[in-house]
């Protein structure tokens, strides 16, 4: 089966091509192409995973570019990480494809939507199968393109277009950094191949400051793609896209690409201690920073967006403290429960036609499947034992606890407390209590089964996928995915107790404030008003960027435009006028040659030829002149230089 692994990204790519080329004949059957090809990919991914578990791998290469004596090879390889990613990406994407059949029904650009979904999935699968940095980068950018196209799916509303632009440009800033990193690594190793690069790093042939700087630049790409601080600003806006797209972006494609990059190059990153420290602190800071914004968010998708940023921060933190398995493990569990939460929120939005949680409430009664699957997803996110998120978050905190920086552990714990609080708040505001908007509540209804079945399937995994790396299965996942050099920290009951304590206190506090309303929300806001304002304003980072980066570049471009028009071209025109003036003096150059030529072309061959003769006479005069000067200057040069 593993020899057919290349089909896994290629099938959705074909689906994209078929929909693009034959969409006009397919009409709304485009969804069948997308879903069908992805379903086969998913089955293949399962088959490949089973074989990889039994020890098969595969690598194939061909020469792609030749420069001097450097040959750049392109190819793919399948190992444990790739096999796991295949299953996660194809499964989540398949769920999104199926769900979209209900959610996007009747959309005016239904075909385009499925074409983009297919390309999106294909790019992400290509990114995962690439055995070299350059192919990964190519797929990386295609993933960015698709997210641009999908975020801007409803481009009649210019707000959505601006969100799409923001996503593309912000990640582009990160990509520029990554490009430098790719080039630097290549300059040192003369190869893009991951295995060869790892080999060179392990033998100390790439080392020192060069390696540190290069890996930091590569990480800048991950910061952009995985929405880490300070390039996180695009992700909350990205929810302008249709909700299934948000699920795909937040769970299985796009944002996990950055985490995957670090995981894929983990042994290379690990050789640069400074880089890992940077990675760990960026991740830790992002985890707590984004979680704090989610505390006050009113938009149900907004809560999930900041939640994603925060959870990605956890993954990055894990990789930064060397807990490779934990990072990858959390990537997997998060993919399931976050896809679930997004799709469930989509089901809610579909029913009540608002994203504002203040207009929801009591929906559990009307939407049993959506409500209960959401609650399972929330429990996984909050880290309630034995839901999946509990196992993976616990691993991360364990890694942070054993790292050189204890502060990272405590940051993780506080972020876990925030996480439990904000998701409890969102759950209660949406599904419990009294309906706050009667109109919306009246219209609420459970979604069709094409939407709820994906929710149920995802809920099963959001609950159960954590067990693959639990004592029950003897840490099977960790053993499967582990790199030979990966160390495994011994479990600590202190870490476990603290993590569970943070989760439970977050849930209880949320319940006290929003469920029982024993603690008044208003008085807390009053008490902590400056903090509340800061969080509400999302630390005003967008505003700062707007003033500094966006207005700055626009002003600069206007300046350059004006400079070009008035100064550079002004000088040219001035010189031109001077030339014309002199030309007038020496022979009415302008009239006879230039104007004469323009106005003088005649239609007939005879007149045409006469004209060319005329023009040539004009030419000849100036030629004779130039020739004379040329010879003169030529002689001078010979005298000086010769």
């Amino acid at each position, binding site marked *: 089966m593993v020899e057919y692994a290349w089909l896994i990204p290629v099938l959705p790519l074909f689906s994209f091509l078929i929909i693009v080329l034959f969409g006009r004949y397919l009409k709304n059957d485009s969804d069948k192409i997308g879903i069908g090809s992805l379903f086969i990919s998913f089955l293949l991914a399962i088959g490949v995973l089973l074989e990889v578990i039994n020890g098969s791998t595969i690598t194939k290469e061909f020469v792609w*570019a030749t*420069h*001097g004596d450097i040959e750049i090879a392109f190819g793919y390889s399948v190992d444990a990480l790739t096999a796991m990613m295949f299953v996660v990406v194809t499964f989540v994407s398949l769920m999104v494809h199926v769900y979209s059949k209900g959610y996007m029904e009747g959309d005016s650009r239904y075909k385009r939507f499925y074409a983009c979904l297919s390309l999106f999935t294909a790019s992400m699968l290509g990114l995962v199968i690439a055995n070299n940095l350059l192919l990964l980068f190519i797929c990386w950018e295609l993933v960015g393109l698709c997210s641009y196209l999908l975020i*801007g799916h409803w481009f*009649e509303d210019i707000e959505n277009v601006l969100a799409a*632009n923001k996503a593309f440009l912000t990640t582009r800033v990160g990509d520029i950094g990554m490009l430098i990193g790719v080039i630097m690594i290549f300059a040192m190793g003369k190869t893009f191949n991951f295995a060869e690069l790892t080999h060179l790093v392990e033998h100390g042939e790439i080392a020192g400051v060069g390696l540190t700087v290069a890996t930091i630049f590569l990480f800048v790409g991950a910061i952009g793609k995985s929405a880490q601080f300070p390039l996180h600003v695009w992700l909350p806006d990205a929810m302008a896209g249709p909700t299934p797209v948000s699920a795909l972006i937040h769970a299985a494609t796009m944002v996990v690409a950055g985490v995957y990059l670090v995981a894929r190059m983990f042994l290379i990153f690990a050789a640069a201690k400074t880089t890992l420290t940077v990675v760990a602190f960026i991740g830790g800071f992002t985890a707590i920073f984004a979680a704090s914004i989610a505390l006050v968010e009113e938009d149900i998708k907004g809560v999930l967006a900041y939640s994603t940023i925060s959870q990605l921060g956890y993954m990055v933190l894990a990789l930064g403290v060397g807990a490779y398995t934990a990072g990858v493990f959390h990537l997997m569990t998060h993919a399931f429960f976050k896809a679930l939460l997004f799709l469930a929120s989509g089901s809610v939005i579909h029913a009540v036609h608002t994203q504002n949680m203040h207009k929801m409430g009591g929906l559990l009664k009307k939407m049993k499947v959506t409500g209960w699957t959401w609650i399972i997803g929330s429990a996984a996110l909050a880290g309630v034992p034995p839901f999946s998120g509990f196992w993976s978050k616990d691993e991360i905190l364990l890694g942070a606890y054993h790292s050189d920086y204890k502060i990272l552990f405590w940051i993780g714990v506080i972020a876990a407390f925030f996480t439990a609080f904000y998701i409890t708040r969102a759950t209660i505001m949406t599904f419990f209590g009294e309906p706050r908007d009667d109109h919306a509540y009246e219209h609420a209804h459970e979604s069709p089964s094409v939407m709820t079945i994906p929710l149920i399937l995802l809920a099963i995994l959001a609950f159960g996928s954590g067990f693959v790396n639990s004592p029950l299965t003897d840490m099977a996942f960790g053993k499967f995915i582990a790199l030979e050099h990966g160390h495994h920290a011994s479990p600590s009951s202190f870490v476990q107790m603290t993590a569970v304590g943070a989760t439970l206190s977050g849930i209880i506090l949320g319940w006290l404030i929003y469920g029982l309303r024993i603690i008044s929300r208003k008085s807390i806001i009053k008490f902590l008003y400056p903090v509340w304002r800061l969080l509400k304003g999302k630390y005003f980072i967008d505003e700062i960027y707007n003033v500094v980066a966006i207005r700055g570049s626009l002003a600069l471009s206007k300046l350059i435009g004006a400079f070009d028009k008035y100064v550079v071209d002004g000088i*040219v025109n001035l010189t*031109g006028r001077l030339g014309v003036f002199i030309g007038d003096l020496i022979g009415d150059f302008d009239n006879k040659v230039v104007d004469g030529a323009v106005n003088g072309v005649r239609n007939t061959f005879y007149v045409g030829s006469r004209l060319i003769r005329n023009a040539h006479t004009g030419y000849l005069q100036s030629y004779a002149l130039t020739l004379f000067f040329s010879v003169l200057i030529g002689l001078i040069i010979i005298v000086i230089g010769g």
Partner: protein
Amino acid sequence: MLSTLVFVPLIGAIITMFLPKEEDRIIKIFALLVSLIPIVLVGMMWLDFDMAAAGMQFVEKAEWIPSLGVTYHLGVDGISFPLLVISALITTMAIITSWNIDHRVKDFFAFVLLLETGLLGLFVALDYVLFYIFWEIVLVPMYFLIGIWGGPRRRYASIKFFIYTLLGSVVMLVGILALYFGSGLQTFDILTIAQQANLSPTFQWWLFLAFFLGFAVKVPVFPFHTWLPDAHVEAPTGGSMLLAGVLLKMGAYGFYRISYTTFPDAAQSFALFMGVLGVVNIIYGALAAMAQEDVKKMAAYSSISHMGFVLVGLAAMTPMSMNGGLYVLFSHGLISPLMFFFVGSVFYDRTHTRMMGELGGLYTKIPLAAGLLAFTAFANLGLPGLSGFIGEFFTFAGTWTELPNLVMIAVVGLVFTAAYHLRMMQKVLMGDAPAKYDGLPDISARELWVAIPLMLLIIWAGIYPNTLLSFFNPSVESILAVLGVM
């Protein structure tokens, strides 16, 4: 073979002049058929091309003016061959694009074919006199194309184009003559002079400068670029396509063919200077493009920006950077004509405006044309998987080992490049469409004949670079051997 290739369009142009002038359709079909012949010939040459050879192939050499040492010397190598492909292809595309021309049809197509002879001849000429003649031949038809069939400010633009490039070429002529007298070899043969002339470093320096000015105007290099936006805005779209796709390649080709092989010492001392100018081109062009309201003007500044990559690649003098520069030339030769075709013809013919403020929401009205414009924009902004990225990436990767600081600055330009393309798409394609654009016809079959071949080549060159690199690499290696860096 090469003589046939070069002069078929000229013969076609002459015959065109004898066709009955009221038979527009016959003239157009005739011109189209003539322009297909070079494509077939180039295709046949491709089959016979020896990929392993670094030297000239299909050489034709004959005495011409023996007393002065002028020879009729043609040949093609891995650097010029891809440019022949572009010249032949874009001429045909320009002819198809110009199907709507109804004013002095005969003259128009005769000039286009004459232009093709000039371009093909330039890229195969191996004698300075021949080179110079073709260089000037190119100038004349383009001047008339802008001056007669151009937009409202055509007079200004055409005169500016003419005088600007004439000044550049006059300086180059000075250089050619100085080289002839200074080398003392009694020959105008480009290869012979490059191999045998023993020029002192100072002399080389002056000559490099003279040729540099000639080439710099054509590239164009900042600050000699202001003729380009005007010429593009006013030129008929077919002319813009040839201008952006092929004429801009002449200067850069000159650096590869002449400056680097004949003045290797001077090239070394000019390298950093050229690199800096290249970075200025990239960033300045991108920022200026961002400030434009006219889509065609934006595309013109975008060309300036992209040509900067070629200079950077030349400056670094590594196999990868020099290959990258050539790749940018080829790729830009495909993408920029496509861009001008869309903004100047497909969209302009329907909406009669090129101002971003007046356009909008066209994706909902003409989805296919809009999708293809978006494809072109992404190709132009360097999306991986399409040809633009390959050239830019290899240029930067190859330059890094020599001039990392320049790369660090130049990559910032990529953000601006993305920004102005996204802005253009936002303003032209997205949002709500004004009611006046209801019922516009989507892209026609004729227009697809222009777009699809170019798009397929852009995709192919973006997926598998070795097709082109196997042409470039041996020739670039031999240039680097002359430069003494390999």
